[in-house]
Structure formats: structure tokens, C-alpha cells
């Protein structure tokens, strides 16, 4: 008998460690033959801690399980939810990047290989560099960190750059509210990221990699560090990657609480030990990145998707999706929803289906008022826009963005003026300070919204003007995109910006 209890930090935040300990004690007391495996999460967070019991070749799920449920669970008195693969939320997904997450012991390289791991890297080792790049180009993979830039083109720039030392930097700074895919895969299938970075290294001729992650993610840091040690011990990393005669090694670095350090040039400054101020482009990081050397900066999910592309072939991957949004996206369903968690699916599902059907509507049972997609720099969408298919261009057409694909649902108690104010406040707190429209504009934005709140409608055109200045005059997307949530709130929910005074009286 094998008993799976997730060690994902969301599961732990809901009591998974206590459940695991209670199971261990109960198993010992009863003298059962059972192995307890701490897996990643399957991504159905509303069911965490989700315990799976594998008996006679059948692996059944139970959840949410509390410490107190453990005796009944082992007595067989708790009704199973069935096999995870048969549960509707899971069965409707296309799991490519997250295929192993939650299924295996994240720190067992043997499990990883049994479930298809390292096949991609072995294939890449046998390919010349330009063929590796072509494979990534053919897959249609675009950066999952937000901007959606074609990954193959970025890699090619680094490959063609001449330098004695090049780097692969994984952007694991995941600061967007409503997102947790990077964290989930680092905790649940860290070897996928390691393998993806090694393939990037081979393709671009880079021998050193860094994973830059947040200090708010101590569990992910610990799992990644341990996985890197294991991979090094097994010859997956090091001077001779899987006997290829080529080197690639990597380490984890931890940020220090600055949202802007997710911006790639700010991240590079931080990695170098400087203030995390944004750098002007050009030069592109691909040509002058970490320590002035050619550097690939890619999001965790971009890199963690590379192994499956190489294992199954670029075409297999590109056959999923919609238009120029190829493949799958791990959509993170968060906020006021019944079924929150990670839902990996081909691009193209409508926002309405995601919110009403997959997420099951609001947890509060009240009507959905707004959905913020793409983190604190993403627009608020109105239910009138629910037909929009999930894709880069489709969201752009709605003056919105998919970003890192977090969707945060709000019910009708949300006050959109407050949300707009928060967006400006967040920008003011997190601004790197390099340019005026962002540094000063965000502070003025808060003040202007406060005037609107007090009933001064003449401040509305001022806010619109200010947003235009921020869009046009900011160096990076922190100042440049904060107007997305602000203006979308104003556009779609004007009543929250006008009736304040009357409501207060």
C-alpha cells in the first residue's frame, strides 16, 4: 500500500503535514505495511489536503482530509472521490507541462524517468544546436512569463552570440497575485525545470544556469536545491551531462521582496547584487545579460514545457491551441471561486467557461462581478466579455492580457474603485523609481482616485490622462501596464466611480 500526501505548500497551508504525521502514527500503531509518499499537488486546491491511497494497483483519492479524519480514512469509512484522472476537473485538462506533477515523488529521479522524464534531454543531446532551436521554434512555444515572446527566437539570439560564457536564467519570481504555477511545478516536479534548463543550455551553448525565485517561496527553494543536488549526483547536471561530454550546472538564488525583480533586466541586476532597477533595452539580455554576457531569461513554465516538447515532438505540442497561441497553458484559478486550482488546457477555452463551469462560479454563491486576468498589471474583465477565448491575441483585442495566466474572480461585493486604487498603490510601492510616470504617476493616481471617491467627477478625465502618460512614458510594464486594471475598472464599472458620493450620503 502506498499513501500519497502532498508536500506542496498550498496543501501544507491547509494542514497536509499534520495529516501526514497522523497517518504515519496510525500506520505504525496498526502495524500496517504502508509507504507514505509526499507528492506534489494534483492542483485541485479546494480538495487539499487530498490523500491518495494506492492499493492493489488502484489509486483512489480522498479529500479534503483533516488530521481527525485519519482513523476513519484507514478504516475505509471515508468515501473515495474516485481516481484523480476520472474527476471532471482533472479529466477535462490536457496535462503536458504538468503531466507528472502530483503523480510522482518530486524528488525521485527514478520515478521521474519511469514517467517519461529525461527522454527529451536524451533526444536533445543527439541533436545539433540549430536543430534544438528549430524544434523549439516549431513548437510555437511563447514565453509564459507574460509577454508571450517566441522562445525559439530568443534562444537563437543567444546561440548566435559569441561569448566565452553564456547563461540560462530561469525567472521564478512569480509575484502576480492569482498565480502559483511556477511554485507548484518547482515543488511538484522540479526535475522538469532542471531538464528544460539543461536543454536550453545545450541549445544555446550556455553552461551555467540560475533559478531566481522569491523569498516568499521557501518550500520551492528547498525542493529545487535538493533536486539540483540529486540531479548533479546522478550526472544529469555537471561537467558531462548524461555522458554527452557537454557541461551544464545550475543553482538557486533568492530575491528579497521586490515585485519589480520579476522584470527580466531588474532581475539580472538583482542577481548581480545590485538594486533591482530596470535596465533600458537595447541591449537585449540575450546579448548583454547577466554580468554583461549573453543570457536567456525565461519563465519557469516556458522552460518546464521544453522537456515534453522534446519527448513528444514539437508538432505534437503545436497541434494544441488556437491561432498563434500554441500548446497548452496552466491556468491558475483563484480568488472567489468554488473550485480553485491549476487547470492546464489548450489555448482557446472561453473565459466564461473557465469561470462559470470549470471554476464553478463564486465560492460565496453571489454573482460574478469581475475577473482580473494576468496579475496586478492585468485588466478586469466584465462578464459581458466572457466569450473571449483564452489566447494572447484574443485578450489583446479586449484591451486585456493573459500574462502568466492567473484568473482572479470577484463577486458583486467588490468595489472596482478600490481595486483601481489598489493597482495604483501597488505600483507606487513596487516602482523601481527609474522613471517619473511610474514613480510619481502612481502616487498621483492614488490621490486622483481618492478625489473621485469623494465625488469629484472632474478628476475622472485627469485619471484617464495620467494613465495615458504612464502607458506612453514608462520604461517597463509596471508603470506601463498598471493603467490596464485601472482603466478597465473605470470603463466596465463606471457606476463604482460615480455613485460613491451619493452612496455615502
Amino acid at each position: 500500500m502506498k499513501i500519497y500526501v502532498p508536500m506542496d505548500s498550498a496543501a501544507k497551508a491547509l494542514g497536509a503535514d499534520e495529516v501526514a504525521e497522523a497517518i504515519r502514527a496510525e500506520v505504525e500503531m496498526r502495524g500496517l505495511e504502508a509507504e507514505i509518499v509526499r507528492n506534489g499537488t494534483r492542483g485541485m486546491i479546494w480538495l487539499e489536503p487530498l490523500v491518495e491511497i494506492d492499493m492493489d494497483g488502484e489509486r483512489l483519492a480522498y479529500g479534503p482530509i483533516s488530521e481527525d479524519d485519519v482513523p476513519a480514512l484507514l478504516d475505509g469509512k471515508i468515501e473515495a472521490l474516485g481516481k484523480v484522472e476520472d474527476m471532471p476537473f482533472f479529466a477535462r485538462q490536457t496535462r503536458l507541462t504538468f503531466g507528472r506533477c502530483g503523480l510522482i515523488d518530486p524528488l525521485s529521479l527514478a520515478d521521474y524517468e519511469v514517467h517519461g522524464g529525461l527522454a527529451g534531454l536524451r533526444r536533445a543531446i543527439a541533436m545539433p544546436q540549430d536543430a534544438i532551436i528549430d524544434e523549439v521554434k516549431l513548437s510555437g512555444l511563447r514565453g509564459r512569463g507574460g509577454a508571450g515572446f517566441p522562445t525559439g527566437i530568443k534562444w537563437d539570439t543567444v546561440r548566435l552570440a559569441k561569448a566565452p560564457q553564456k547563461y540560462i536564467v530561469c525567472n521564478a519570481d512569480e509575484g502576480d497575485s492569482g498565480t502559483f504555477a511556477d511554485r507548484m511545478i518547482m515543488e511538484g516536479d522540479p526535475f522538469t525545470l532542471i531538464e528544460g534548463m539543461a536543454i536550453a543550455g545545450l541549445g544555446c551553448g550556455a553552461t551555467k544556469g540560475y533559478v531566481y525565485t522569491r523569498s516568499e517561496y521557501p518550500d520551492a527553494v528547498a525542493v529545487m536545491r535538493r533536486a539540483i543536488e540529486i540531479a548533479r549526483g546522478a550526472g544529469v547536471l555537471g561537467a558531462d551531462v548524461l555522458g554527452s561530454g557537454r557541461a551544464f550546472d545550475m543553482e538557486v538564488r533568492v530575491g528579497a521582496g521586490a515585485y519589480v525583480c520579476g522584470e527580466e533586466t531588474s532581475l539580472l541586476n538583482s542577481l548581480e547584487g545590485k538594486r533591482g532597477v530596470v535596465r533600458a533595452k537595447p541591449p537585449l539580455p540575450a546579448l548583454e545579460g547577466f554580468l554583461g554576457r549573453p543570457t536567456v531569461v525565461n519563465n519557469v513554465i516556458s522552460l518546464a514545457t521544453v522537456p515534453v516538447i522534446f519527448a513528444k515532438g514539437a508538432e505534437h505540442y503545436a497541434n494544441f491551441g488556437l491561432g498563434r497561441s500554441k500548446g497548452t497553458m496552466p491556468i491558475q484559478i483563484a480568488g472567489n471561486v468554488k473550485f480553485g486550482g491549476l487547470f492546464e488546457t489548450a489555448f482557446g477555452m472561453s473565459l466564461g467557461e473557465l469561470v462559470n463551469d470549470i471554476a464553478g462560479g463564486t465560492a460565496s454563491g453571489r454573482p460574478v462581478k469581475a475577473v482580473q486576468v494576468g496579475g496586478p498589471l492585468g485588466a478586469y474583465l466584465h462578464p459581458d466579455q466572457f466569450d473571449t477565448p483564452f489566447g494572447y491575441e484574443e485578450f489583446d483585442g479586449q484591451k486585456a492580457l493573459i500574462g502568466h495566466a492567473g484568473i482572479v474572480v470577484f463577486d458583486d461585493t467588490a468595489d472596482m474603485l478600490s481595486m483601481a486604487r489598489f493597482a495604483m498603490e501597488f505600483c507606487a510601492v513596487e516602482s523601481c523609481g527609474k522613471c517619473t510616470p511610474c514613480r510619481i504617476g502612481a502616487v498621483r493616481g492614488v490621490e486622483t482616485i481618492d478625489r473621485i471617491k469623494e465625488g469629484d467627477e472632474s478628476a475622472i478625465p485627469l485619471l484617464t490622462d495620467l494613465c495615458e502618460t504612464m502607458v506612453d512614458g514608462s520604461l517597463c510594464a509596471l508603470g506601463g501596464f498598471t493603467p490596464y486594471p485601472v482603466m478597465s475598472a473605470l470603463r466596465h464599472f463606471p457606476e463604482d466611480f460615480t455613485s460613491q458620493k451619493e452612496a455615502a450620503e
Partner: protein
Amino acid sequence: MTPTQPADAGATTETIAGIISAHAHLEGPLLPMLHALQDEFGYVPAEAHAPLCKALKITAAELKGVLSFYHDFKDRPHGRHVLKICRAEACQSVGGTAMAEHLLAKLGLDWHGTTPDGALTVEPVYCLGMCACAPAAMVDETLIGRLDESRLNKALKSVGVRATGAEVSA
């Protein structure tokens, strides 16, 4: 991560030198050094400034610039335990703002405040990656999902802090 006051100057100097040399071989060693110093002392002691500048060949102004840029780095001791409460959007969507205000009132603290006995500091944080089980908070390195008063108190208790924010032993 249990911040301690430096016991005596000699030990501090030695500890600081040890931390600096342990990270000197890294590319971009400053942040790892600052994290290690903060893990050791609970803050980045002023005694470390000169040796850091010397080892990394940077000016005092450059070091100051880095220290002030990042929210994490502290220049003086804060609470022996840190409670971070998420203020970001997903937590707001499920009543996080009201919950945070309620918990702050219970502790008698404002954001960035520390209890009189120095046991607990409360800080805002913007997303803990717990957005599917919001609202969220973190006590030292223990995460709390679906935050409410009883779940917070349980987490505080696990690190030896009472619901009032005072240390159990104090």
C-alpha cells in the same frame, strides 16, 4: 530563522567574516551574503557594512542603495517572529482586507508594528502563491491558507507565540 542579538563584538566580527568568505566565490555574491547575515542576526548589522564593501569593492553608498531597495532587508532587529499577511487581489476577493484589519486589531498592531516584548512583527506581503486557498498569511516559514483567527492562533502557537502576540515564555 531565530534572530539573535549579537553576543559580543569579537564573535560578531568573526561571524560576519565567515559569512562573507563563505559566499565570496559566487557570481553576484551580495544578495546571498545579505540573506545569510540576516538569517544569522535577524537583520543586517551595521558592523557588516565595511567588511562587505571591502570584500566586494563597492562603496558604502552602493551598499546602502541595495539595502534600501529590497523590502526584506532590515537594518535593526525586528520581532523574533514575523507574521506576513497577504494584501494582494486574490486575497482581497475573499475578504482578506477585513480579515487583515481584524487580526491587526486583535494583536493591537499596525502594519510593520512589533509587539512590546519584541516577539512578533507584522508585515504586509503581496501574494504568497496561496491564491486558490486565500486569504493567506505566513508565520516565519509556516504558511496558512483560508486564514482566520483560529488558524492564525494555531500557527502562532506552533512557534511559541500567544494569540495576543506575546511570547509564551515571556
